[in-house]
């Protein structure tokens, strides 16, 4: 077995096993220590990670720079060519959404549900922005919002099929879809949504999906609701 380096920091009075010339405690220069008797145990060490992490951070910064550069250039061109139009806001919004989604998708601590939910939210916000840039016709609230709820219901059904082992796990999301559909009526009340039929359809579909899960799921579905609502 290869003989490993062993140093000593005279100031701290400790043996250093990292093989470096500097003491990590006092930053003093360490000297060679041939006395192996003073080391009762040498551990396994750790992998070198800093280079990998630095590379990941550089990629992220490059993407951020490109997004910002595109935003600034488009903003300047928009202002110079046609200051009355605000189309550069769309570029800005799309850039922000792309960067946000990129951060979520490369983040290993972000679950698939969070990724799906944030993708829907980002797309919705972008729709609202498009609507605003085009003079706010109201299509983003009238059509895009109920479409998002239809979409959420389809996603829940797909997830139940894909994750068959835990199909009942998505029942709380079904309940959330019902609540969100209910909130659409608030928008109808404020006049922000001009097609109440779409709000009604979203609510009916959300309720049907939930009812179907409870009835077809039987005991498993009831047990899931017991667990989820336990106090």
């Amino acid at each position, binding site marked *: 077995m290869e003989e490993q380096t062993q140093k000593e920091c005279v100031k*701290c009075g400790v*043996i250093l*096993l990292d093989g470096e010339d500097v003491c*990590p*405690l006092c930053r003093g220069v360490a000297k060679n220590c041939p006395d192996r008797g003073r080391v*009762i145990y040498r551990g*396994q*060490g750790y992998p070198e*990670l*800093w280079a990998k992490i630095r590379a990941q951070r550089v990629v992220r910064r490059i993407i951020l720079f490109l997004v910002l550069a595109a935003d600034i250039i488009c903003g300047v061109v928009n202002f110079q060519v046609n200051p009355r139009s605000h189309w550069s806001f769309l570029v800005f919004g799309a850039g922000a959404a792309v960067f946000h989604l990129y951060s979520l998708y490369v983040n290993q601590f972000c679950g698939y549900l969070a990724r799906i939910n944030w993708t829907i939210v980002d797309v919705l916000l972008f729709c609202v922005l498009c609507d605003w840039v085009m003079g706010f016709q109201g299509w983003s609230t009238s059509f895009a919002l109920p479409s998002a709820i239809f979409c959420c219901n389809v996603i829940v059904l797909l997830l139940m099929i894909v994750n068959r082992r835990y199909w009942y796990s998505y029942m709380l999301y079904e309940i959330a879809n019902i609540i969100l559909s209910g909130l659409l009526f608030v928008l109808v009340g404020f006049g922000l949504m001009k097609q109440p039929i779409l709000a009604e359809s979203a609510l009916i579909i959300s309720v049907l999906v939930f009812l179907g899960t409870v009835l077809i799921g039987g005991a498993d579905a009831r047990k899931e609701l017991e667990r989820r609502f336990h106090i």
Partner: protein
Amino acid sequence: MAGKRRRHRARSWEKLDNTANVFPVIAGEEMSNTYRIAAELKEEISGTLLQEALANTLPHFPGFKQRLRRGVFWYYLEENVKPAPKVRKEHNYPCRYIHESRSNSYLFRVCYFGCRINLEVFHVLADGSGGVGFLKELCYEYLRLSHSDLREKVGDGLSAGTSLDREDSFLRNYRKPSKSVYKSTPAFLIKGEKLPGQSFGIMHGRISVQQIKEVAKRYGISINEYLVADFIYATWKAYRGKIRKNRPIRVAVPVNLRPYFDSMTTKNFFVMVSAEFAPEREDYTFEEIAQLTAESLRSQITKENLEAIFSYNVSNEQVFVAKLVPLPLKNAAIRLVYMKKALANTTTVTNMGRIDVAEEYKPYFAGFHCYLTFSAGQYIKVGLMSFEDILTISISSALVDTSVQKHFFRRIAKDGVDVSIETNGVWYV
């Protein structure tokens, strides 16, 4: 038929214990609330064999075969029927956040490096005692797979003495509501420039149990008291000018409640006591700090006081109105209370004690160590674990400055103990 029956059996689930309720709320990338226990063998680890060992061991531990779910009022744990999480060669900083939907939804992670097997556990599952039991059985199974003669000699299955109990010992031993005995006034916090890129700094100091025992005896205190006192002394030496009486150095020390309440649970069953040092003058000797620390700890580690501490925690959870508060609101309240309490401690020194392994397996083990991740306001933490004559002091840190570690280890060396230091290299970048 049996297979069909199994498929149709309702998934088992369990409520979180009193301590565990806090962890899912406060955990995140910045504050992962995981701890690592590592076993070092005398042979290079094979990833394939370790994966097989994990697949064989996991079904015996229902407490680890769980996933975290979010209810409307509380989090809970549900049986996880997915295959064991993938065993990987260590490729990241230790104690990273364990996301509930990653690693096949398991709340622990197993990786290896050289001769070392690392088990990282999200604290919601179990405390150190529960983790040690699982790691030992995993190592035993690994050794039986890699040494057929050992398998023939000891046979298969778990070893005697390993507990699988999942009792909520907080609830079982809770008698009556108690007043808060926690110190919640702010403590001195060790701050400074952070290591780059969310690095996790780890420094192991290895010393002889025999030597440190003699030193502690000289001061008339236990090893644990000596090391807690040494941390206080090191902090005081490093930040003497900044420490005031109204911002004392307060070291949280988790106390394992199992011996006091005759419990074998693998769930969390510990409370925190704290050793406090509020300087009233400019100069203190180590001997004085050691005596103050020992007195402070001894006065708190009594069965009555420990019972009062956890009874207060449990009584809060038992308020019916509080039970009916929806989880997002509960989370906000728990986060607020936690942040206040977390800032009341300078650090945490956890002593998992001496690890005993079964006689037949002893020749294959070289050492054990443990450490904790940082938490709000506590950017340096200490984990202690010993095996045979080796005591490993593991100091995890998020800070560039190592002056606390310097004074800590210098003191031990000055007292005549041989100290060897090993780090994960972050302080050389």
